């Protein structure tokens, strides 16, 4: 018997009892678009089951007794006259302790343990692979609790602490609470004012989970990538877009961030990307040691894999699924990063379906609602105080794949309006093997000021000034590089030649960072600061030499190799080695006259 994952379920957190199911009959099928006449209840975005195999779909329009449905599976063989069941429930994700370490499709159906080929309509059961989880109560019967309060903990579930919370929209007296011990994920562990609470709860993926308050902290998400942490830092709860044409190293950069950033949980949404790449991500995460816990990185990762050849509309749903999973962990007071690769494929799914429904196209065939859909997705990020009063955050990093490298195309152009940080990957830099190819001219971080203040108040008062010096030097060197192409380096005055040299030193010695390097794949904040300081000091000394009359050519011929290689020689947190190599270089420059 073929079963559906999202069978009618009365365990919804926020909704009252579901509407009665409606029944219908299919009238029209064209690819993933289905029209059906129906009787009974039907609401927008309700789930439906199509035909005999019960293929999942979602209501996207209702008109005069006819629903329009987008199907989440291949619809070959579906014919007019076949039945349709309206489930009276929106598409929901089962949120529970089994999620961490799992690999799911766009509808959060587990892929692990399924066959080699994904056959439409054959869905497996729920996400839980472990039969039971150890529940530990944190309140007593009779206690008075509000929504979002902690009822208990799930122990031994992985490297991060998991909580069972009072469901959204419920509060009152704890009437029953389970004893410490092993429970099935769908067993009732508490009763609050007549509402049964389970370890696993469902939440409709298109509805953001509510919070008490949004915060503006300026606390930084350390990514371990110098080009980012130094120049275009991202705050916890912020939003980033990463546009880059094919071959610019986008996926490698995103994987580096997933591996090294200091979030508690990573949700990696492979949205319409390559199957072999996805296999690689899965393999690497499973093999990689978590630098924080010593366990496997995969144990605090949730992977949503919807490759480009898997059903298109499940791709459309996958980024919402990813955001919902992230919010679930955020509500436990964790910092979560959602990486979506790539949002362009998601937007293309919107376009493809809009074209089938006959919607009037806006720019380049995308629906008119594209900009608001992008904005709404990124708005699911945020640093918040949760309903239960804990602090948590969801940071969203979305890759953008501009067709033909055209940065003016609608998805890239609109996304830039709604994100706080932009890391543009530059084809020229990638071509010159400068990785990560984050363009300093084409990127921005609107979090930099707040992060600067945060650094000033905590660990690193010089952060803002250091960033400004590096950025100024790079901009100056870029400006002069254009000039050099015209008139040659020899025509520039000595100080400007030192700026050109300085730009090269900072690019090679600070910004370049190899993802394959044992020591430098991750750069801790102290190492990043030490490298920037050391190389800026070297540039300053060069300027002094030029001022004191040493010919510019002479300075340019100095071998800066030892200090340029400092990034490779020092370990991830080793500021001392960097400082020592910098001092040696300065001493050597002192001998030049």
């Amino acid at each position, binding site marked *: 018997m073929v079963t559906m994952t999202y069978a009618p379920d009365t365990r919804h957190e926020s909704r009252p009892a579901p509407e009665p199911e409606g029944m219908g009959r299919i009238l029209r099928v064209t690819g993933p678009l289905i029209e059906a006449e129906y009787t009974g209840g039907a609401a927008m975005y309700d789930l439906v089951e199509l035909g005999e195999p019960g293929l999942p779909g979602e209501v996207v329009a209702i008109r005069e007794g006819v629903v329009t449905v987008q199907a989440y599976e291949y619809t070959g063989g579906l*014919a007019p006259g076949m039945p349709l069941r309206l489930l009276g429930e929106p598409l929901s994700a089962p949120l529970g302790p089994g999620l961490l370490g799992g690999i799911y499709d766009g509808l959060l159906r587990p892929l692990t343990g399924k066959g080699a*080929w994904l056959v*439409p309509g054959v869905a497996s059961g729920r996400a839980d692979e472990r039969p039971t989880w150890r529940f530990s109560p944190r309140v007593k019967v009779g206690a008075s609790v509000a929504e979002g309060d902690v009822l208990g903990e799930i122990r031994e579930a992985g490297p991060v602490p998991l909580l069972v919370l009072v469901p959204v929209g419920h509060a009152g007296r704890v009437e029953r609470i389970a004893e410490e011990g092993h429970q099935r994920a769908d067993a009732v562990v508490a009763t609050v004012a007549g509402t049964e609470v389970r370890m696993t709860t469902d939440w409709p993926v298109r509805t953001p989970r509510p919070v008490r308050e949004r915060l503006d902290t300026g606390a930084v998400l350390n990514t371990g990538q110098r080009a980012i942490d130094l120049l275009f830092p991202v705050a916890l709860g912020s939003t980033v877009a990463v546009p880059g044409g094919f071959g610019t190293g986008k996926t490698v950069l995103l994987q580096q961030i997933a591996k090294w950033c200091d979030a508690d949980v990573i949700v990696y949404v492979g949205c*319409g990307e390559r199957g072999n790449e996805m296999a690689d991500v899965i393999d690497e995460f499973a093999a990689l040691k978590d630098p924080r816990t010593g366990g496997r990185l995969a144990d605090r990762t949730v992977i949503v894999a919807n490759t480009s050849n898997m059903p*298109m509309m499940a791709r459309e749903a996958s980024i919402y699924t990813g955001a919902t999973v992230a919010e679930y962990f955020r509500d436990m007071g964790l910092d979560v990063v959602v990486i979506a690769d790539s949002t362009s494929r998601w937007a*293309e799914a919107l376009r493809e379906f809009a074209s*089938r429904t006959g919607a009037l196209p806006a720019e*380049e065939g995308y629906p008119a609602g594209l900009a608001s859909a992008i904005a709404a997705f990124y708005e699911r990020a945020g640093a918040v105080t949760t309903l239960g009063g804990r602090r948590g955050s969801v940071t969203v990093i979305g890759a953008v794949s501009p067709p033909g490298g055209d940065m003016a195309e609608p998805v890239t152009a609109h996304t830039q309006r709604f994100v706080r940080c932009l890391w543009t990957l530059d084809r020229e830099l990638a071509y010159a093997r400068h990785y990560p190819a984050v363009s300093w001219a084409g990127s921005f971080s609107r979090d930099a000021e707040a992060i600067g203040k945060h650094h000033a108040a905590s660990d690193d008062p010089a952060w803002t000034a250091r960033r400004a010096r590096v950025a100024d030097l790079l901009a100056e060197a870029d400006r002069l590089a254009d000039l050099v192409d015209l008139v040659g380096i020899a025509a520039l005055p000595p100080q400007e030649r030192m700026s050109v040299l300085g730009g090269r030193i900072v690019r090679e010695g600070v910004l370049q960072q190899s993802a394959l390097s044992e020591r430098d794949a991750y750069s801790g904040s102290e190492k990043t600061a030490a490298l920037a300081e050391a190389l800026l000091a070297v540039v300053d000394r060069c300027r002094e030499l030029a001022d004191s009359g040493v010919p510019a050519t002479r300075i340019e011929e100095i071998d800066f190799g030892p200090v340029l290689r400092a990034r490779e020689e020092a370990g991830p947190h080793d500021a001392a080695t960097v400082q020592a190599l910098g001092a040696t270089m300065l001493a050597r420059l002192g001998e030049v006259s």
Partner: protein
Amino acid sequence: MNSTPKEGVVNSTSDWGRVEYTSVRELRGPLAVIDQVSGVGWDEFVQFTLGSGEQRHGLVLEVDRGTAVVQVLQDTAGMDPARIRTLFTGSPLRIPVGPSWLGRVCNGRGEPLDGGPPVFGAGTSAVGGNPINPVRRVPPADPVLTGVSAVDALTTLVRGQKLPVFSAAGLPHLELAAQIAAQSTAGGEPFCVVFAAMGVTHADANFVRDALEERSAAGELVLFLNTADDPVIERILTPRIALTVAEELAFTGGRHVLVVMTDMTSYAEALREVSAARGEIPARRAYPGYLYSDLASLYERCGRIEGLPGSVTVLPLLTMPAGDITHPVPDLTGYITEGQIVLSREVHAKGVYPPVDALSSLSRLMRKGAGPGRTRDDHLDVAAQLLAALARARQIRELADLVGHSALSPTDRRYLDFDEAFYHGLVDQRRDELRTLEQTLERSWQVLLTLPRSQLAMLPGDLLDAHGAAEGG
């Protein structure tokens, strides 16, 4: 339950109990609209019988209440709406699969062109295929050696990879494809080629048949030929049939299968034609908005699968209209595939075959499929050094154009010699010349040694000693 095939592979699973419809309401471009049908499913395979008795085939694109819109694979020319019988077969197109395809030459619908009987198989498979579960994929790790130096040395093809060839009109991409198809091997393990040609001229089709005759005779080839005067819409089916046959040969038969598909631009144009006939809202350059998903549904059928033998490697060829790499077909292909081999007019003008532009070409999976334990220990270092030197040579050539050859330093002039040696000593090879990996790498070394040792910093010292690298400049 296979019935007796009427014609080639395109037989339905069962004809009994199916109603034939005699009314076609509308014929328009490649589309036929049939009224008053019932129980017809989307993507169902359709058989038309014309008044003359001729058989044609189609696929259901849309079914709206009692009306079905069918794309006719052989075009609608000569079809009289009053004299067509239409049979809906009750399921999406399935074809017989199995080793009986090996050695056969068929048209774009899988019907024999070699005078032999229709192809039978132990089982059938739907041509649409199913997506491979990403969790069950095994990352590609072993090479397919093509015997073509430019490919093997610098953009090694890896089993399970999809690596397209981007070409332009007038370049010998078909020759290169045929050569790769004729020469490729997988380290002594069972290997075969499925070659799908779409929209090629008769002359080209004959060339491919001749070039691959030996491979065909050895039972290591399945050839699908859709020529330029064959029905356009049939091209939508051709790569799907080829891939379905390949998947069975690989994952059931345990072979490493190389699927060559040419020309994908012709395929995309067929897709556009159907889209335009249906009045769909066009996206870039009037290609349908679903071009990315559609191409992905083909290219992504490559791979290796945990627990199953064999592999499917996909080598699509496409001509970039007006040489434009940002054209939707190469652009979207580049986003799906793992690298690209780019052919260039400049290299072609030098008289070099194959005219590979090495600096624009890339095999993203090469790091996994070449080097120690895969090809040869020094392979990756040699490739990296070749590319670095080539990039430097290109800069120097630009400089030389500005300042003149005589103003170059002696080292710079060595780079120009290197450039020359690279194209004529390594890339250039005869169209029937099979070079072993050893030969390719030894030639690479000879080319590199035109440079002084100081310029070969990416190569280990002991290997430089062994090859007798010159010290001076």
